[in-house]
């Protein structure tokens, strides 16, 4: 029955499934003999190995979920994966069942895409970098010492000749937790580097509107509290792919408890197909107009909760404006068109968003007529030019409905109380900076969230931080920013790139063709990663990094309600090593104390993650207590400094079980009803906003956003075309379609794109509507060429009746594979098409990139993704 699960058949499977050569990286395991490979007997294999807990630290959802992987290991080789199946499964404490990405982690960790050895590009030498060959060259294996010597020499050269501002560390400057990279600490100790991490990627344009309009961050109901809602009115919800874990299950449960689900989306996505009672198709990026159209109908018919608005909000009407504001600038008069003579009627909204005026009226009445409404909007709804406008419109709509602060009435862009929240229900201790000694990047400016805090910057030349979206074109142009910044645009002269820190930014940031030009223009590019992904393919020297499975031995978290233990599943494959080794070895070569770069020992990291683990005892008071009982013997075994402590479970129990799940019950002390205290007594418990109230009119928000200079907004929600070349309303004859880029369960961003079973399950497709496909003679499976002003990709079309006409989708994270003859990307990375346009709080505005899609008639062909070999470093022996 099937194939017995032995190490031998595993190695054989590696060959078959990967379409590449066998994986023989396991130390101590001889390559299998031919006769052993023919073994296909039907007897069930005896289990002689061990079940361990393998981390699934994929950045799949910004903290919404992480899941349990139990990994069966025999002779040091992982053979099977199971998930949380044995514990009781209830809606209060659901099993943490892994998604397909988790289930495929053996294939990922042992993929032929692993970088096996330190490698150097054949055409590169210190004196002749031959940069044009990056991404095209052959490779040769070198020793760790050679590689580290080369890297240290090149880094030293750059520091000496041009200083830290000549180095792009292509990742975050404060990378911590599961993505911690001590190499960044080393760079910080050397005077820092430039990072392309100004602004937001995942979070869109939400943080500052939430902060300034509501006085907090990441407020959301918890997974049980949503059962109190009668209506779940969601903009852009594909939780199964975007949040994963139990989130879609919890919403489905809430629906079955009586809450109607309405999802406003450009497509009837996979989650909506299951959970939505109604789908409202909408042109991507036009939700602001839709909300304002509904607001008009509410105002016209006096359906808004005027008492709530009067008591808890400022800015809705002329009678409730904050001090200093022109009464004429209130929201109500904007909607009615009192002064601009343009009433924002449902018909006005329909012309923009495509939702029929009659539906806008009906939905407005349904919202107003429902007592308890759970408003939610996905992060990407604000990834549009001037995206803060939708955050403003969204909160305003929820405030017009009223009831915020009471059970069942919520407005959040997080959806469920989760790990991104500042107040998780349980957490691991800090394994990346538990000693508090990690050096910080001296070039980082004071920040408001993730953009510069101008008021606190004394010297405009004192800092560097490049925005994500425009980074590549900025490097090519030699400057970044806006003229209105204090000191004006900033010069930028990058000579060296370090491509590590768990980032694949050549693939992951807009305008990837410019990224390739940047990589090729550099004096030197080096990378460190477990996988030979596109960013590493364009390097001069790459170092093989050990995965989470090969490091392990920490407690970790990333969602609100679980702390996981990570066992070491296997020894580092091939010659891979942890980042800590790289940081220390480079430190020695760069005259930095290795302990200044790698500030904790492995044992100290383990201990810190365990001793700092906490669980919440009360949500209202933010009470926390230690999670683990740690004995002196535990401390002695690790050989670290520490003190015994009492908690809910022993370290041994935690490791054996593999995780801790927060016990929950509906309406328990952990229940999250945001703004509860404010609702109960707004005088005694004012919000942390400038007026102490919800700010429908928020002068501070507009003033700050406008000072960043990427786009301009009003203090109230107003619809606008935020960029003349991007988004709904700017389509041209040449580029008539709006691109948006949903997540795929095939990947966590770019991670896992090397896995055959996932490639099979989710081909990288151009999703298009039946209307647009028919107009172009395109059928499902046809190869189509997607073209934007910034590049071209070739992919099979999937023609669907479930996408709004005028919009096409290409899922994020596919690995770039450029056809050198034509320059066309055969891998299908949407960033090849995306425009380099920062917006608002330096957020990305890529929903609504203008594209054309045509049936492809040229000579290129594509095999199914599952049969397309993984890109391997040419010249490296297997």
């Amino acid at each position, binding site marked *: 029955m099937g194939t017995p699960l032995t190490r031998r058949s595993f190695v054989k499977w590696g060959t078959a499934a990967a379409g590449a050569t066998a994986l023989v990286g396991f130390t101590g395991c001889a390559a299998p003999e031919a006769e052993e490979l023919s073994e296909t007997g039907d007897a069930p294999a005896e289990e002689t190995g061990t079940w361990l807990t393998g981390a699934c630290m994929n950045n799949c959802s910004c903290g919404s979920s992480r899941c349990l992987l139990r990994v069966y290991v025999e002779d040091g080789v992982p053979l099977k994966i199971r*998930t949380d199946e044995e514990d009781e499964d209830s809606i209060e404490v659901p099993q943490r069942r892994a998604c397909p990405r988790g289930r495929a982690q053996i294939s990922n960790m042992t993929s032929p895409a692993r970088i096996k050895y330190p490698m150097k590009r054949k055409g590169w030498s210190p004196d002749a970098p031959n940069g044009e060959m990056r991404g095209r060259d052959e490779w040769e294996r070198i020793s760790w010492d050679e590689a580290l010597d080369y890297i240290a020499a090149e880094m030293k050269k750059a520091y000496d000749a041009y200083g830290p501002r000549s180095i792009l560390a292509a990742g975050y400057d404060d990378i911590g937790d599961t993505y911690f990279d001590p190499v960044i600490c080393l760079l910080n100790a050397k005077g820092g580097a430039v990072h392309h991490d100004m602004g937001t990627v995942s979070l869109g344009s939400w943080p500052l509107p939430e902060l300034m309009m509501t006085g907090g961050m990441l407020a959301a109901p918890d997974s049980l509290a949503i059962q109190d809602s009668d209506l779940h009115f969601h903009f852009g919800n594909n939780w199964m792919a975007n949040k994963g874990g139990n989130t879609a299950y919890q919403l489905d449960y809430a629906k079955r408890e009586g809450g109607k689900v309405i999802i406003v989306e450009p497509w009837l996505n996979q989650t909506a197909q299951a959970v939505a009672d109604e789908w409202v198709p909408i042109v991507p990026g036009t939700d602001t107009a839709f909300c304002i159209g509904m607001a008009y109908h509410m105002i016209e018919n006096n359906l808004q909760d005027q008492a709530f608005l009067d008591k808890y909000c400022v800015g809705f009407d002329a009678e409730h404006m904050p001090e200093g504001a022109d009464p004429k600038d209130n929201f109500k008069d904007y909607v009615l068109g009192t002064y601009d003579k343009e009433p924002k009627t449902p018909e006005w909204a329909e012309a923009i968003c495509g939702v029929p005026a009659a539906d806008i009226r009906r939905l407005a009445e349904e919202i107003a007529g429902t007592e308890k409404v759970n408003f939610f909007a996905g992060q990407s709804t604000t990834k549009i030019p001037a995206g803060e406008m939708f955050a403003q419109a969204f909160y305003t709509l929820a405030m017009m409905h009223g009831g915020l602060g009471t059970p069942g009435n919520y407005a959040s862009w997080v959806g469920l109380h989760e790990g991104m929240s500042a107040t998780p229900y349980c957490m691991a201790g800090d394994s990346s900076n538990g000693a508090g000694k990690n050096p910080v990047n001296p070039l980082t400016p004071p920040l408001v969230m993730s953009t510069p805090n101008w008021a606190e910057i004394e010297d405009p030349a004192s800092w560097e931080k490049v925005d994500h979206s425009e980074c590549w074109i900025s490097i090519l142009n030699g400057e970044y920013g806006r003229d209105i910044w204090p000191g004006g645009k900033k010069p930028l002269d990058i000579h060296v790139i370090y491509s590590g820190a768990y980032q694949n930014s050549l693939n992951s940031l807009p305008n990837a063709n410019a990224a390739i030009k940047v990589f090729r223009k550099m004096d030197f590019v080096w990378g460190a990663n477990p996988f030979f992904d596109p960013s590493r393919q364009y390097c001069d020297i790459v170092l093989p990094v050990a995965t989470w499975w090969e490091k392990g031995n920490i407690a970790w978290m990333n969602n609100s309600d679980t702390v996981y233990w990570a066992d070491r599943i296997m020894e580092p494959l091939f010659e891979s090593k942890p980042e800590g080794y790289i940081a220390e070895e480079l430190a020695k070569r760069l005259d930095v104390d290795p302990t200044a770069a790698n500030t904790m020992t492995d044992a100290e990291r383990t201990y810190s993650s365990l001793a700092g683990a906490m669980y919440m005892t009360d949500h209202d008071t933010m009470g926390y207590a230690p999670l683990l009982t740690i004995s002196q013997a535990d401390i002695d075994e690790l050989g670290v400094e520490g003190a015994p402590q009492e908690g809910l479970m022993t370290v041994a129990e935690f490791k054996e079980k593999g995780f801790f799940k927060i016990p929950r019950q509906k309406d328990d002390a952990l229940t999250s009803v945001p703004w509860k205290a404010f609702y109960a007594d707004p005088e005694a418990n004012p919000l942390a906003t400038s007026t102490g109230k919800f700010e429908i009119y928020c002068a501070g928000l507009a003033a700050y956003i406008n000072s960043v200079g990427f786009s301009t907004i009003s203090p109230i929600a107003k619809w606008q075309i935020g960029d003349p070349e991007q988004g709904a309303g700017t389509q041209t004859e040449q580029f008539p379609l709006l691109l948006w880029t949903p997540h795929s369960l095939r990947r966590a961003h770019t991670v896992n794109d090397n896995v055959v079973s996932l490639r099979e399950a989710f081909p990288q497709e151009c999703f298009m509507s039946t209307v647009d496909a028919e107009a172009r003679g395109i059928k499902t499976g046809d190869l189509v060429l997607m073209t934007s002003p910034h590049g071209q990709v070739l992919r099979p079309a999937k023609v669907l009746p479930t996408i709004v006409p005028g919009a096409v989708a290409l899922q994020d994270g596919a690995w770039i594979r450029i056809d050198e003859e034509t320059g066309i990307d055969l891998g299908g990375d949407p960033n090849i098409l995306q425009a380099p346009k920062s917006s608002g709080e330096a957020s990305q505005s890529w929903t609504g990139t203008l594209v054309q899609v045509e049936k492809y008639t040229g000579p290129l062909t594509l095999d199914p993704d599952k049969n397309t070999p993984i890109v391997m470093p040419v010249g490296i022996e297997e």
Partner: protein
Amino acid sequence: MTQYAFHFDSSKCTGCKTCQVACKETYKLGPNNLYRKVLNYQGGTWKPTETGHYVPEGVFGYFVSLACNHCTDAACVANCPTGAMQKDDETGIVWTDHEVCIGCKTCQTACPYGAPTFAEDEGYMLKCDMCKDELAAKGGKPICVTGCPMRALDFGIREEMVAAYGEGDVEIEPLPQNTTGANLIIEPHRNAQKSGSGTGALVNLEEEL
């Protein structure tokens, strides 16, 4: 004889394919072999409006997770020329004896659900056996069932599944009419179309199936 059956609640399925991938990864199936697959059936049209947009008319979509149905009158067993394809007396599980199978693919053609799949390297047919070794060793349920993040799949003795969930309806698009006594009990999605109604289409790419 006891007959085991799968239960599938189509109204809960989000098409995440955890069932398919967990199975494929556990049994180390080749790139072109699946024991379980997830079908997406969609339909409806769009009408232009005066404002230059379109409005949907009867647009719907839903998923069906499909493995072998371990049919009571299994066509694969009836048509197998070598006797490799067998129905277990005690459990009703349909399985393939790889020692006997010659890889002629007759079963694949005969099966209305296309469940058996040909292993190129081994030269024999593969199919879902309801994780029967796993069940024998540990009890419990098949991997696809215990892994489903939406709790849309279940498994057990057919009568018990019916008692728990009702008879359901296995004759929904894109599945054919039930001519083989399929031991799959489906709770239909609210938009489910009857088999043969032809109102929509399977939208998966060929390479997914």
